[in-house]
C-alpha cells in the first residue's frame, strides 16, 4: 500500500470571490523509499501540495491519506502530534531556532517526543555526523553557512525517523556546490536509512538526481515520470 495517497485533491483560494485553483483534482500515490521531486513553474501549486501532505493546510475538497488515515479528519492537536511523530520538514529558509546550537536544533523534535535523553543525544550526534557536521555540534545557526544550516535542517528532519521527509525548495537559497552536496547527502540517507523524500525544486540539476519527477501545471498533474534503477 502507498504511504501517501491524494484523492481528488482540490485547494481553492478565494472560492467565493475570484477562485484560484491552487490544486486541481490531484490523484497521486507515494511509496515508501521514494526519492521524488515536485516540479513546475512558479505558482503551479508545489508548495500548496507539500503543505497538504504535511498537514500544515487543509484541502478544500478531496483527501490526503497517510497509511490509510485521512489526515484532514484529525483534530488540531492530533494533526500537530501527527506531524511530530511521522513527518520531517525541511524549509527553503532553513528555519532553525536561532538561539539553539546545531545539536539542540536536531534534538528538538525528539525532545518534544519525550524520548530518552541519552538516546536523543546519540542519535542527534549520529545524524549530524552523517550530514558532515561532526565538528559543528555546538555552533549556532548564525555561525554556519547556508549550506551547513540546511544540512542541520535535514538532520533535524531525519533524526526522529519520521515516515517521510518533505522539503520545499531546499536548495533555492544555496549556491550550486552546496546544493549538489545537500542532494548527495539526501540521496545517501534515502538509501542508507531508506527514508522517503519528497521535495520541490526549480533546479534542473536537482531534478536530474530524482528518481521520480511529478510535474504540476496550474495546480493539475502534467506529467508523472518514474526512472528505473
Amino acid at each position, binding site marked *: 500500500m502507498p504511504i501517501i495517497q491524494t484523492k481528488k485533491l482540490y485547494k481553492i483560494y478565494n472560492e467565493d470571490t475570484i477562485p484560484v485553483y491552487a490544486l486541481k483534482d490531484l490523484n497521486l500515490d507515494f511509496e515508501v523509499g521514494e526519492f521524488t521531486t515536485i516540479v513546475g513553474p512558479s505558482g503551479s501549486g508545489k508548495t500548496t501540495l507539500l*503543505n497538504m501532505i*504535511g498537514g*500544515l*493546510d487543509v484541502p478544500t475538497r478531496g483527501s490526503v491519506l497517510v497509511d490509510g488515515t485521512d489526515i484532514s479528519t484529525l483534530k*488540531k*492537536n492530533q494533526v*500537530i*502530534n501527527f*506531524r*511530530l*511523530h511521522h513527518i520531517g*520538514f525541511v*524549509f527553503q529558509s532553513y*528555519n532553525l*531556532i*536561532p538561539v539553539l546550537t546545531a545539536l539542540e536544533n536536531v534534538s*528538538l*523534535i525528539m525532545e*518534544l*517526543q519525550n524520548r530518552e535523553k541519552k538516546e536523543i543525544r546519540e542519535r542527534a550526534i549520529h545524524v549530524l555526523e552523517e550530514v558532515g557536521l561532526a565538528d559543528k555540534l555546538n555552533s549556532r545557526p548564525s555561525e554556519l553557512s547556508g549550506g551547513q544550516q540546511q544540512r542541520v535542517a535535514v538532520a*533535524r528532519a531525519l533524526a526522529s525517523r519520521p515516515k517521510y521527509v518533505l522539503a520545499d525548495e531546499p536548495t533555492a537559497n544555496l549556491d550550486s556546490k552546496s546544493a549538489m552536496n545537500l542532494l548527495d547527502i539526501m540521496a545517501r540517507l534515502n538509501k542508507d536509512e531508506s527514508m522517503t523524500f519528497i521535495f520541490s525544486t526549480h533546479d534542473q540539476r536537482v531534478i536530474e538526481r530524482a528518481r521520480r519527477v511529478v510535474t504540476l501545471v496550474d495546480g493539475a498533474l502534467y506529467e508523472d515520470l518514474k526512472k528505473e534503477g
Partner: protein
Amino acid sequence: MITAGSVMFAVVLALTMESMNKGSHEQMISNTLRFGTGYLQIQDTAYYETPSLDFSFDLSGDLLQKLNSTLGNHAYAIPRIESFVLAAGELDTRGAIVTGIIPELEDRMNGFLKFVSQGNFTSLEEKGVFIGSGLAKRLTLNVKDTLVIIGQGFQGMQAAAKYPVLGFVSHPMEFIDNQMIYMHVKEAAWLFSLDQNRSHWLIMAENDKKAKEVKREFEKHLVGTGLTILHWEELQPDLVKALAFDSASGWVMQIILYVVIAFGIFGTILTMTLERQKEFAILVSLGMKRHILALQCFVETIMISFLGVFIGLGIGFPILLYFYFNPIPLRGGLSDLVKEYGMEPFLPFSMSPSIFLMQGIIMLILSLIITAYPVWRSFTFQILKNLRR
C-alpha cells in the same frame, strides 16, 4: 531583558511615588499626634465645642487608677492645661497660648528637648516659662527678661502673673514657634486657679491599634462622668479629610502611572512576541503543541517580570532608605507653604513594608495581565503565514 528592565524601572518609580505620598501622610499624622492631639484625649464632653477652662476637670482617685491599669505598659497619659492669654513684653502685647506641661513627659512624647534652643529645660520645674522663638522676637524678649501674662482663669477668675523667660523653643511648626508659652502644669494650675483640674489629658500609645484598644476599654469607665475619650481622627476631622483627599489624588496619579507602565511593558512584550512569531510557527509546524508553547511563553514572561519586580524592589529599597534617613529639603515657597501646614520643610519618605508588598503585588498582577497577550497569540497565530516571513 528589556522587559525585565522596564518592569524594574516601573517598580522603582511606583515605589518612590508611593513612599513619598505615604511618607508625607505619616509625617503629618505623627506631627499632629506628637505636637497636637496625642492619640487620644480625655475631655469634658463640652470641651470639644467650647475649649474653655470652665470645662476642665479633676481626673484623680478611682478613675485615674482605672486609666492607669487600662494603659498598662503600652501607653501613658499626660495632663495638660491650655488656654489663650495675652502675653506682654516691655513694648508689645500679643495673643499667645499657655501650655502647662510636665517636662519629662513632654520630651518622652515628642522629643521636646531637641527643640529647646536656649536655656535648660529641666529648670522649668521652677517658676518661669519657655517661649517660642518667634514669639520672643515679636515681643523683643531675651532670656532672663520678664514676660507678663494676662488671661482669664477658672470661672472668670483673674489670671495675671509675671514670669522670667528661662529659654526659647525653636520649632518648624509655626503655631508653636509664634504662639507657645510653656510652663509647668502645676504653675499653670496656679495661674488659672484650677487647683487639681486639668483642661484635658493626652494619651500616647505605641501605635494606633493600641490606642484604639485603650479607647474601647476606657470608654466604659467614663459613662456618667461627663467625660469622654476621643480618638485623634475625631479631634482632627479636617486632617482626616485632607489626607483622604490627598490619598485619592495620589491614587489617580498612581493609576495613571500604572497605565503608562502597563503600556510600556506591553510594548516590549508585543515586540518580543511578534519578533518570535516565526520561531513559534517553526516549533508548531515541527510538532510543538500550542498549549505547550503558550505555557512556555507564560512561564517566560512571568519569570522575566518576577526578575524585574525583585530587582526593582532590591534597587528601590536602598534608594528609599537613603531618602528616609536623608529627606529631601524643600526650598523657597514650597518650604513656607509646608511650614504653614505645621510640617517640617522636608519631603519625607515612608519605609512602611506595606508599600513594598503592595507595589510588588500590583506589578506582578499587571504583568500577569500582560502575559495574556503572548499566550493568546500562541493559540491563534497562523502557521503558514508566519513560516514564510
